[in-house]
């Protein structure tokens, strides 16, 4: 979505246009869902989390000043939403070990081989610390630039580079172990 078009849609949505807000959702739903799925490894929870992100956008639309791209804001909210859900999930599993393991299905349209690859990747991401997981997902999955990642995560570009380097090392380490097994 072009910046001007995006601003226009935001203004229309602020004035109460449901169509404009729906257009914003349509343009951004895949990236929000994708990032939620990578971080939560559960399609149903990722769907709910993505919905919550857009509800939050709707609620804070009046306060949205348009200084940054809407995608930047959505990424930030999605990362926070997923981090919060993961913390909640960790508390639940700590208090109740009998909880079901997360489901990593990504939909019936994806071929089995691809599904396995995605599942392996998601499992590897799940084993990483949050800062490394976030920076890796933004760079490799969302293909964001270092500058964009720095803005989204509110860190310096130098930190993005060093975190990404260590995150890639960690991912290889985990995937290597997974393949040996």
């Amino acid at each position, binding site marked *: 979505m072009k910046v001007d078009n995006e601003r226009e849609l935001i203004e229309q949505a602020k004035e109460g246009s*449901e169509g404009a807000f*729906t257009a914003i*959702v*349509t343009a951004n*739903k*895949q990236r929000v*869902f*994708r990032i939620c*799925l*990578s971080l939560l490894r559960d*399609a149903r929870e*990722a*769907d709910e989390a*993505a*919905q*919550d992100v*857009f*509800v939050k956008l*709707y*609620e804070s639309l009046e306060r949205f000043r348009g200084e940054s791209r809407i995608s930047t804001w959505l990424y930030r909210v999605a990362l926070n939403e997923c981090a919060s859900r993961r913390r909640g999930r960790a508390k639940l599993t700590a208090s109740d070990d009998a909880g079901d393991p997360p489901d990593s299905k*990504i*939909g019936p*349209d*994806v071929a089995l081989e*691809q*599904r396995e*690859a*995605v599942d*392996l*990747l*998601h499992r590897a991401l799940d084993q990483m610390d949050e800062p490394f997981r976030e920076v890796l997902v933004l760079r*490799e*999955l969302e293909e964001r630039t270092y500058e964009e990642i720095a803005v989204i995560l509110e860190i310096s570009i130098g930190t993005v580079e060093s975190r990404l380097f260590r995150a890639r090392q960690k*991912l*290889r380490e985990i*995937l290597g172990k997974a393949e040996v097994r």
Partner: protein
Amino acid sequence: MNSESENDTDEEKMWSAARGAAPPKEFESRVWTRIRQTRSASRWMTAVWALAAAAILLVALPLFKHTVAPAPAPISVPEPAGPADNESIEMTAAAILFDWDTREYEDVLNVLDDESESNFEGGST
């Protein structure tokens, strides 16, 4: 070197597959349903808070009245002594005159005494 590039390719394939993930159908309508639910819940919460605040006020106000020391009874200021109407003015005046009369007798006696003394004194001078 080769194994590193193979790893890169494998990773790239994984990321590429992960990029294909899309939300289930009718995502937008579910977002709208959730927005409406949130708005409705928020309206309910506002109404509940308003009712709770009103109930607290209703209960707390009488309790507050009892807790605070009762205001002191109004001090009864006595009517200023003295005449209030024409009749009492006359009565008061009569009493004063009576007093004057009484004093007059005494005064007369005193005056008489004084005069006799002064006469004596005067007589002596």
